[in-house]
């Protein structure tokens, strides 16, 4: 099923944040480099996870891919278009092929809006008739295994698992080519994590889109990916098919991750 269409590609990307230095250096702003020479490619239909702990640069990497942070160097292409060479308006039209599920559902849902409005937002100025929008909303709600009753509720009336599903629904309603999820299971209880993992995989099959998930949990990565990329202090230290990475790790950091996970098994 994965074909060779490249959805996202990063070449020699170096990225970071502007900060002022200490002492005399405060006269100049310099870049605090967080990502060093990142190269990655995600093809159509693939499931890739980026495994990194706090401080690894995974948040920065996501921002770069989502068009929110221009790298200092390097080329970022989404669907074969270099998004940072485009003005914001055009960049957004390219990024519309991307679905994004942020990490914290409490910050990702506007508490003043009903679920229906939240989910249908991406379709708003795509010149689609209101009735069609409604149909898609029903379709997508069903796909995430929520009942229609949820549509009229406000976010504070939902549980953590339900909020996560609403976010996923919103992210697929405009039929993207790739779904990017930031720590999709970290805020959830163990018993619900499994449900969400299953949901993501079923969406992957049904909609035939690529999946990019960022997580710190090796166990979750195992279930969510075909390929895994291990990020450590801003560099990719290991890459490969997930089963191989777990059984035959090459880098010592990977070993460390596996060891910490397994001591409890």
């Amino acid at each position, binding site marked *: 099923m994965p074909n060779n269409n490249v959805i996202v590609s990063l070449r020699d990307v170096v990225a970071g944040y502007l900060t002022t230095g200490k002492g005399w250096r405060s006269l100049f702003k310099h870049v605090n480099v967080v990502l060093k020479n990142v190269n990655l490619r995600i093809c159509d239909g693939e499931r890739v996870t980026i495994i990194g*702990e*706090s401080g690894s640069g995974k948040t920065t990497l996501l921002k770069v891919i989502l068009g929110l942070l221009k790298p200092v160097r390097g080329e970022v292409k989404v669907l074969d278009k270099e998004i940072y060479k485009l003005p914001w308006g055009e960049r957004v039209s390219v990024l519309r092929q991307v679905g994004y599920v942020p990490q914290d559902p409490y910050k990702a849902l506007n508490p003043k809006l009903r679920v229906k409005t939240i989910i249908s937002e991406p379709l708003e100025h795509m010149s689609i008739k209101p009735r069609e929008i409604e149909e898609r909303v029903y379709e997508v709600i069903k796909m995430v295994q929520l009942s229609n009753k949820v549509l009229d509720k406000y976010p504070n009336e939902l*549980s*953590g*698992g339900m909020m996560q599903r609403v976010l996923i629904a919103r992210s697929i309603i405009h039929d993207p080519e790739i779904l990017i999820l930031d720590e999709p299971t970290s805020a959830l*209880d*163990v*018993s*619900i*994590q*499994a*449900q969400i*993992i*299953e949901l993501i995989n079923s969406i992957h099959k049904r909609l035939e889109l690529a999946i990019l998930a960022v997580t*710190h*949990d*090796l*166990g*979750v990565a*195992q*279930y969510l990916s075909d390929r895994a990329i291990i990020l450590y202090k801003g560099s990719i230290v290991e890459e490969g098919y997930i*089963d191989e990475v*777990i*059984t035959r790790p090459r880098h010592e950091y990977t070993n*460390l*991750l*596996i*060891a*910490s*996970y*397994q*001591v*409890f*098994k």
Partner: protein
Amino acid sequence: MVLAVRARNLRVGYVDEDENILWAVKGVSFEVNQGEVFCLVGESGCGKSTIGNTIIGILPPYAVTDGELHVFGKPVVRGNHRDYSGIRGRIVSYVPQNPGTSLNPYQTIGTQLYYVLNSVYGWDKKKSLEVAKKYLSLVELDPEETVDRYPHELSGGMQQRAAIAIALSTGAKIVVADEPTSALDAHLRLQLIKLLMKLKESESLTLVMITHDLVAAGKICDSVAVVYAGEILEKCSGSNVIVEPLHPYTQMLADAVPLLGFKRRLKSIPGEPPRPDEEVTGCVFAPRCHLAFEKCVEPPPHFKVYKGEVACWRYAGNAKQ
């Protein structure tokens, strides 16, 4: 052996704005022996943190209690009357979940330790500093360096250790740790657990650990209590809780955790736990239990089984109550 903590039919609830009582903990009984590691395991909202807070003595003024709780023989909770004098901060100490918010950002670690030692023992700055350094090295932090550092200058793992040092410096016999590893990265988690084990040995601490990680609990705890919707469903020894879980819920929890290198089918538990204000009749887990049968419409008593205790009708046959 002296019982460090003893709870009999403990109930803890909160009064909301409409004067209704929402019971977060609905009648739990357990015992913690001195010098053991006791885990309260459960998912979010099950009431384990509330039980922890009740042991420590930090329930808010709008909490109501019922039943009994004894700490080293002293009754701290009797009915709705709570008396923690001499216990809170002296016998029982607390390591909160998020190290970042439990340390005072405006004081150095040394100063914070000084305040604690001064209030417990009345020592002056010089003596307190000496003792403080001793505790810091106990938690494997460099005493000279750390004493002058502010919390934000320390990494998450170091902050957590500092918090443990402060908790220990009160001379407490019981340390309640609320999800001590949740805020940490995987390899830091491992280090912290090892530290806690070491401390348990060297200081003969009684450790009450609150966690949602069933597997970690199984590995390091002497005894485990599985909490669900305010009730204890199962009590057993640590090693058994993974290997031979008694209650269906525990089994399902164990099945839901991803294992590395072993890609079995992840089984999730359908539905969600009941909210505290939902009325529950019968076994509290029955609506989600795939092994429920007719008897489950009645709340099950606790059956003592040879490996522990379980609140499930399936064990009615082979046990005495």
